[in-house]
């Protein structure tokens, strides 16, 4: 079931576009923002609300990197794994995060605190390597800073 609040926000997005279906990505974003990820059940509810089949909506949802169709932790670590960050030592940072948190790409810590994902170029290549945690961008990240940065997210 979509909540009243979710429906209101989705309605706002529908109002902005000439064809209802065009707001379906916004609808996925609204629900993900409230529930962190889009479960099969949520997907069915959104699809019904958007007059789409769940299959059609899922084809859209699974196309995009940042719509999560599996449960994620409270905080999402997105490490930039594209070329400038690679040159500047991203793979070592990736290994270090895996070591510190015990999770590889796509995994969530057992306490549900972090999910670790690679992300294509974050567009801050003059300050590589870079990573984002939730909405915060970290640039020129060094191995020494990693523990402190991760510690900010409870």
């Amino acid at each position: 079931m979509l909540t009243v609040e979710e429906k209101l926000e989705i309605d706002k997005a529908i109002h902005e576009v000439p064809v209802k279906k065009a707001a379906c990505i916004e609808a996925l974003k609204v629900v993900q923002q409230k529930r962190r990820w889009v479960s099969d059940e949520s997907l069915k509810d959104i699809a019904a609300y958007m007059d789409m089949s769940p299959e059609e909506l899922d084809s859209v949802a699974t196309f995009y990197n940042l719509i999560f169709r599996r449960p994620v932790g409270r905080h999402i670590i997105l490490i930039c794994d594209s070329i400038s960050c690679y040159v500047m030592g991203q793979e070592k940072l990736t290994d270090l995060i895996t070591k510190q948190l015990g999770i590889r790409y796509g995994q969530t810590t057992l306490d549900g605190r972090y999910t670790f994902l690679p992300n294509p170029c974050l567009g801050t290549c003059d300050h590589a390597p870079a990573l984002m945690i939730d909405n915060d961008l970290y640039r020129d990240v060094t191995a020494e800073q990693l523990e402190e940065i991760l510690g900010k997210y409870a």
Partner: protein
Amino acid sequence: MEKPLTQHMRGDGAPLSLKEYERAGGYQALRKALKEMEPKAITALVKESNLRGRGGAGFLTGMKWSFVPMNVPKPKYLICNADEMEPGTFKDRILLEQTPHQLIEGMILAAYAIQADQSYVFLRWAYKLAAKVITQAIEEAYAAGYLGKNILGSGFDLDMHLHTGVGRYMCGEETALLNSLEGKRATPRAKPPFPQISGLFGKPTIVNNVETLCCIPHIVNRGTDWFKNLSPGADAGTKIYGVSGKVKKPGAWELPMTVTVRELIEEYAGGMQDGLKFRGALPGGASTDFLVEEHLDVRMDYTGVAAAGSRLGTGTMIILDDHTSVVGFVRNLEHFFAQESCGFCTPCREGLPWIEKVLRTIEIGEGKPEDIKTLEFHTKYLGPGNTFCALAPGAMEPLQSALKYFRKDFEELIRHKISA
């Protein structure tokens, strides 16, 4: 040296407010255009200015606009492509974060030229600060009467929306971007029809890059001769160049399009880091061919870089140094393209992961001599004309040039069965 796009930036990274932008001459071009110029005159002016698209393809902007039918019912759309996701590219971020009103003014002028009544900024998800800045700037522009109904008493109406994407490189391709805005998978569309005729929701649509649109107010204000003279070479206007990789001072600079590869690396980026040597550079993002030492004096304009066998692309250069594995470098690029392929056409969907796998095998010292042939086959098979859009041909550019210039690096790993 004039720097129209960046000269008024505050220097502290904060956005120019509406007041600050107006004090620097902002929105004067819009006033002038709405008062004195017919829409067609603006298109003619931009055509005459020789402005070429700064998103990577380099198509003539005025020419693109001129294909939009003028006497058709509304809606028509103007879209700013701010889905900057080409690896190694970070130039639009600067414009979005620091001079939002310059972009908005450029968008209003472009919309007026093609008589669009709806406009969108298609922004990538990761640009959180830009989203905040653009949202506020759009609100300010509405409040000041630069957006909405009857703009500055001219009778011209324009609405502007911010759309934040959910992450996919394909969204940077203009027809895929339109599909995404329509709530679909971001796969490219067949052309024709071109978006100018049948774009968003089947209506006439123009999609322009951030940097391209930011040039428009200056062209309207200062004229075509001034714009052409910004770069004494073959191309017009300035360009925001960037350098990343192991140089002393990575960064971005607005420069005339006469700067050479050497000047960018040595004068602006401070040269290579101590103890490292330059081996090559991708001049304009991940999907451009390598330039090597013999190209250091090549001019970074469309014709200069093309004559050297590559493309200016986005103008943001990624440096390959002598301590970084060539095979690892190229494998990283092909991993990106394999992951971001939309999967719509077979050569791209199947070919790119195959290439990535072969490169990985060579990188870990398990390559076979025939692997190079497999890679070479793909550079042809995924080349221009064999795929539905430009993603795979773009992905082949760094690979084919790496095999040309750095073949020994591949061969040595294979021969000695050593990992990179």
